[in-house]
């Protein structure tokens, strides 16, 4: 039998080989000192690794009561949601206010007056506002329209 490779040694240590393969290896280890040494050193190192990792786990750990959101991260999430929701509420309110303003604004008469003029000469800026005769001009433009229609 050939010498054992690392993978086989590892699987052998971890008891992950089928029975037949296992026996074959044990048979080989009986007579091959170098492989036996390899297996022993690998096993020792694996044990050491497990023990070192074990030092990071405290011995006396009790199961605490389950609780939602006891973690800092959860609090951050909640804070984030609070900020986002308050900002969006503010935006919504602002939008509503703007919409109401736009809808409730009365149409300005001045705009109508200006667009009612046909040409710039019709508008006499020397007269005070109250004395300007808008009705006359309007009637003229209406008659013109009717002329065209007829």
């Amino acid at each position, binding site marked *: 039998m050939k010498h054992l490779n690392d993978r086989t040694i590892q699987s052998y240590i971890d008891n992950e080989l089928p029975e037949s393969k296992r026996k074959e290896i044990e048979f080989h280890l009986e007579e091959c000192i170098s492989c036996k040494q390899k297996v022993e050193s690998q096993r020792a190192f694996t044990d050491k690794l497990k023990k070192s990792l074990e030092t990071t786990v405290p011995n006396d750990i009790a199961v605490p009561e389950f609780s939602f959101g*006891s973690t800092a991260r959860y609090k951050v999430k909640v804070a984030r949601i609070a900020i986002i929701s308050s900002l969006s509420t503010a935006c919504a309110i602002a939008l509503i206010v703007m919409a109401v303003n736009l809808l409730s604004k009365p149409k300005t008469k001045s705009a109508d007056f200006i667009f009612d003029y046909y040409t710039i000469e019709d508008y006499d800026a020397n007269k005070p506002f109250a004395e300007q005769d808008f009705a006359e001009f309007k009637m003229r433009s209406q008659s013109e329209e009717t002329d065209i229609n007829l």
Partner: protein
Amino acid sequence: MDPEFEKTYRSYYLELFRIAAKMLKATENAKDVVQDVFTAYYFARTNDKVIRDTKNWLVRSTINKGIDYKRKMARIVTMESPLPDTDENSHDEASDILNAIDHLSEKEQMLIVLYSEGYSYKEIAEITGRNYHSIGKTLSRILDKIKKHVL
């Protein structure tokens, strides 16, 4: 709290805590991670998400959240202190090995943690989504890396 959830919580808490503690090397953070995992599990259950294998689901989500936490902590450490407190003077073997594990990739660390917890190759393959036949080879390679780092 419904009794089935309570039962799962009681029976898996320590197992998950050990994994988280080994990944993060800090008790308080590990507790946080495990609470997070069970919170996620609770909501997954109440939202009728499909959980095929409870144990695998929990272990996998512990590992994911552990890695997530580690990345966040790494960011905080680099911002607060440019030199993380690696004890260069203490040279006992255990801390050397732990230091070597810290230098492995996230996937390798996760494999080593599961392996040290006594999971079989089959379980490791299922949890990590690796090929069952490659676990032995991968493990021996990772152990080799740690060995080289320690020596």
